[in-house]
């Protein structure tokens, strides 16, 4: 009885692994709706995400540093142009400022 259960469990887990390995983006939702073990999988995923945020992400590094280091061209007209006063203008420069505003809260200078 016990070995039969383990065998069933092993088959079930291997199906899960195969499904995870083969699933394309659009298919990812399918296994989650099938059976009870999906709940366990979802809980584990949530825990993992919290750990990523708290542990080892560049997000923590940038927030601790308090400033964003953003790589630009500096000579791409209207995208990122370094001005005589050292400021940088352009749409790419503004996307840098946007990430700084979101992550650090301030875009100064």
């Amino acid at each position: 009885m016990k070995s039969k259960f383990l065998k069933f469990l092993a088959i079930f887990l291997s199906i899960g692994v195969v499904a995870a390995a083969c699933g394309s983006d659009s298919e990812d939702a399918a296994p989650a709706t099938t059976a009870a073990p999906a709940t366990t999988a979802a809980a584990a995923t949530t825990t993992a995400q919290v750990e990523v945020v708290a542990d080892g992400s560049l997000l923590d590094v940038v927030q601790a540093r308090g400033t964003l280091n953003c790589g630009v061209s500096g000579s791409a007209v209207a995208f990122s142009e370094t001005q005589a006063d050292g400021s940088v203008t352009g749409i790419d420069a503004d996307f840098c400022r946007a990430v700084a505003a979101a992550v650090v809260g301030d875009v100064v200078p």
Partner: protein
Amino acid sequence: MNFVALTASERFTAVQTGDVDVLMRNTTWTQSRDSSVGMDFGPTTYYDGQQLMARVSDGFSGSSSVADIDGSIVCTNVGTTTEKNIAEAALLAGAEITLLGFETSDEVYETFIAGGCDITTTDGSALVGRKAKQQPADQEWVIFPATPISKEPLGPTYGQNDSAWADAVNWTVYAMIIMDEYGVTSANVDATCATAEAEVARLCGGDGELQTAMGLSADAFHQVIRQVGSYGEVYDRNLNPVGLYREGSANAGWLDGGLIYSPPAR
């Protein structure tokens, strides 16, 4: 906020060594960069394509094709997708060209203006910008072919396999796109957020907000719009002055027939 100016060939190393946290550097999303180079890519912020620019006095016009550049000296930047695209396109069109590579864009255009090359080639947006800014009074430049020779989706780039960082960068861009869809700008964001409901309220940091779960402050995207602006605002402010408009282009919103689209904030 610290800007680091990088040449095309320096940029990926600067991410890998930790000198920069993210690249906002006209970087095309390609398969090799996404895999073997070790980068991950965020949402495309500008759909571009490579074109060529030449002098009208050399017999070129807006209806010129790549076949017409046979025998020309072509200048471009090293370490870019541009180099490979023009070599491939010339081969396919049966045009023999001499390719001169430069480390910086400024060198490319100095050489082009001085007559050291017949053709300069890079992303269409950059050609439009340079033409607007640098075309001498005694020269007339023309950009061709009308349909670009390549796809150049430009957007944020960062080191691979850091999902929390990728989410923070990506959703900053998405928030700017969604707020633009709702007509929210830096001028009206405070008033809008005070009374907003549903999706805008969530992005503002109100009921159901998801920013804190991402490791950001609840009002992170409110700050983005207040301090920098929506996607449309940022696009118009920077690109309209050089003659680049969203209307009728791939950079229009999806409801206007373009490709700028965000997943929902919920």
